[in-house]
C-alpha cells in the first residue's frame, strides 16, 4: 500500500472520491482508505485537500464541505464534481462502434472473442444511457472471410456487381491478397472463369461463400492482365466533376496526372465518356485503342 502518491494519481483520486462519497455517505475513514488503497493518514490528507476544492470564487459557499473528524466521511456542496471521472458519451460511442465492427470481423476467425465483446458492449451501452446500433459495412464482414480463405487456401464463390457491364456475375475465385487503393479495399484473386488475376472491390461484392480447398495453381500475378497499369491523362474540362467521376481527391492545376488502374477497359470508357475533357497521354497503344473505339461508335451514327 503506498502512502505517498504521484501528484497525477492524487488528483485522479480526488476526482474519483467525490462521486464515490456522494453515494457512500458516512463511510468510515478506514473503509474509504481501504477502498482507494491508501493509508488512513494519506486519506485524511486528501480529504483535507478536497475541502479546498470547489467552483471558482473559492469562498466557503463555493468550496466542497468535507466532514471526517468523527471517523466517518461525508461531503456537501459537491454537485459540480458528482459525475464519475469516466469516458465521455462520445468516447463511449466511438468505442462501441469499434467493438461492433471488431465483433463482426471476429465471427468467423475468433468466435471465442465474440461473447466477450458482447459482454463489453452491453456494459458500455449502460454507460451510454441508451442504445446504439451499428450496421457494419459488408466489406468488413467479407474481409474476415477472405483473410480466413487466404490463410486456409480456400476458394470463394462471389456474387459480384460489375459497374462496367451493369450486371451481377457469379464467380469462383482463389483469393490471393487484399489491397487498399484510393480509399477502397480490393480482393486480388485468381478468377476461374477468366483464368486470370482479377481485382474485386469489396463493396461491390454482394454475396460470398467459401467453396472448398483451392485446386488451381495460380499463375504469376505480375504477368496478368488485371494487374495495375500506369496511365497518364490530361484533364481539360471541369476538374471537380471529373475528379469525382474518376474517384480522385483532386486534380492538379495543370490537369496532368498519373493513375494506376486495374482495368484498361474502364479508363478507356472514362476517357471516351468525357469527350474532349480528358486526353489519355500514355500508354501510346491505349491512345490508339481509344481512337479506334470512338471511331467505331461514330460509325454507328453514320449508318
Amino acid at each position: 500500500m503506498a502512502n505517498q502518491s504521484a501528484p497525477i494519481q492524487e488528483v485522479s483520486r480526488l476526482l474519483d472520491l467525490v462521486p464515490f462519497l456522494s453515494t457512500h455517505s458516512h463511510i468510515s475513514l478506514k473503509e474509504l482508505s481501504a477502498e482507494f488503497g491508501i493509508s488512513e493518514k494519506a486519506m485524511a490528507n486528501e480529504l483535507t485537500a478536497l475541502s479546498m476544492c470547489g467552483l471558482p470564487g473559492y469562498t466557503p459557499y463555493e468550496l466542497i464541505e468535507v466532514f471526517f473528524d468523527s471517523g466517518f466521511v461525508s461531503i456537501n456542496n459537491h454537485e459540480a464534481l458528482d459525475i464519475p471521472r469516466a469516458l465521455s458519451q462520445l468516447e463511449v460511442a466511438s468505442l462501441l462502434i469499434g467493438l461492433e465492427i471488431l465483433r463482426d470481423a471476429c465471427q468467423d476467425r475468433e468466435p471465442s472473442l465474440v461473447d466477450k465483446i458482447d459482454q463489453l458492449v452491453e456494459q458500455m451501452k449502460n454507460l451510454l444511457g441508451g442504445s446504439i446500433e451499428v450496421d457494419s459495412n459488408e466489406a468488413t464482414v467479407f474481409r474476415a472471410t477472405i483473410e480466413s480463405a487466404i490463410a486456409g487456401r480456400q476458394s470463394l464463390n462471389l456474387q459480384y456487381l460489375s459497374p462496367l457491364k451493369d450486371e451481377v456475375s457469379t464467380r469462383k475465385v482463389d483469393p490471393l491478397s487484399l489491397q487498399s487503393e484510393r480509399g477502397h479495399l480490393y480482393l486480388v484473386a485468381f478468377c476461374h472463369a477468366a483464368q486470370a488475376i482479377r481485382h474485386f472491390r469489396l463493396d461491390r461484392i454482394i454475396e460470398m461463400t467459401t467453396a472448398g480447398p483451392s485446386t488451381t495453381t495460380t499463375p504469376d500475378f505480375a504477368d496478368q492482365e488485371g494487374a495495375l497499369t500506369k496511365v497518364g491523362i490530361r484533364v481539360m474540362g471541369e476538374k471537380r466533376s471529373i475528379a469525382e467521376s474518376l474517384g480522385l481527391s483532386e486534380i492538379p492545376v495543370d490537369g496532368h496526372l498519373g493513375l494506376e488502374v486495374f482495368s484498361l477497359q474502364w479508363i478507356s470508357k472514362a476517357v471516351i465518356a468525357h469527350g474532349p475533357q480528358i486526353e489519355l497521354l500514355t500508354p501510346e497503344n491505349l491512345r490508339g485503342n481509344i481512337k479506334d473505339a470512338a471511331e467505331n461508335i461514330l460509325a454507328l451514327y453514320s449508318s
Partner: protein
Amino acid sequence: MGSSVVPYQDSMQLVREVLWAGDNAIVLAPDSLREQVIDSLKKVVAIHG
C-alpha cells in the same frame, strides 16, 4: 438491340452516360443530342489521333 425513351434534364450528363455504354447504345433522337454525341466522339478521335 431495342430502343427506349429516356427522360433527361442535363444533356451533358446523358451524353456521358451514352458514351459510357460504348457501342452498346446510340442516341436515335432528338437530333440535337445525337449531334452532341457525334461532336464529342469526333473530338475524342481528333485528340487521340
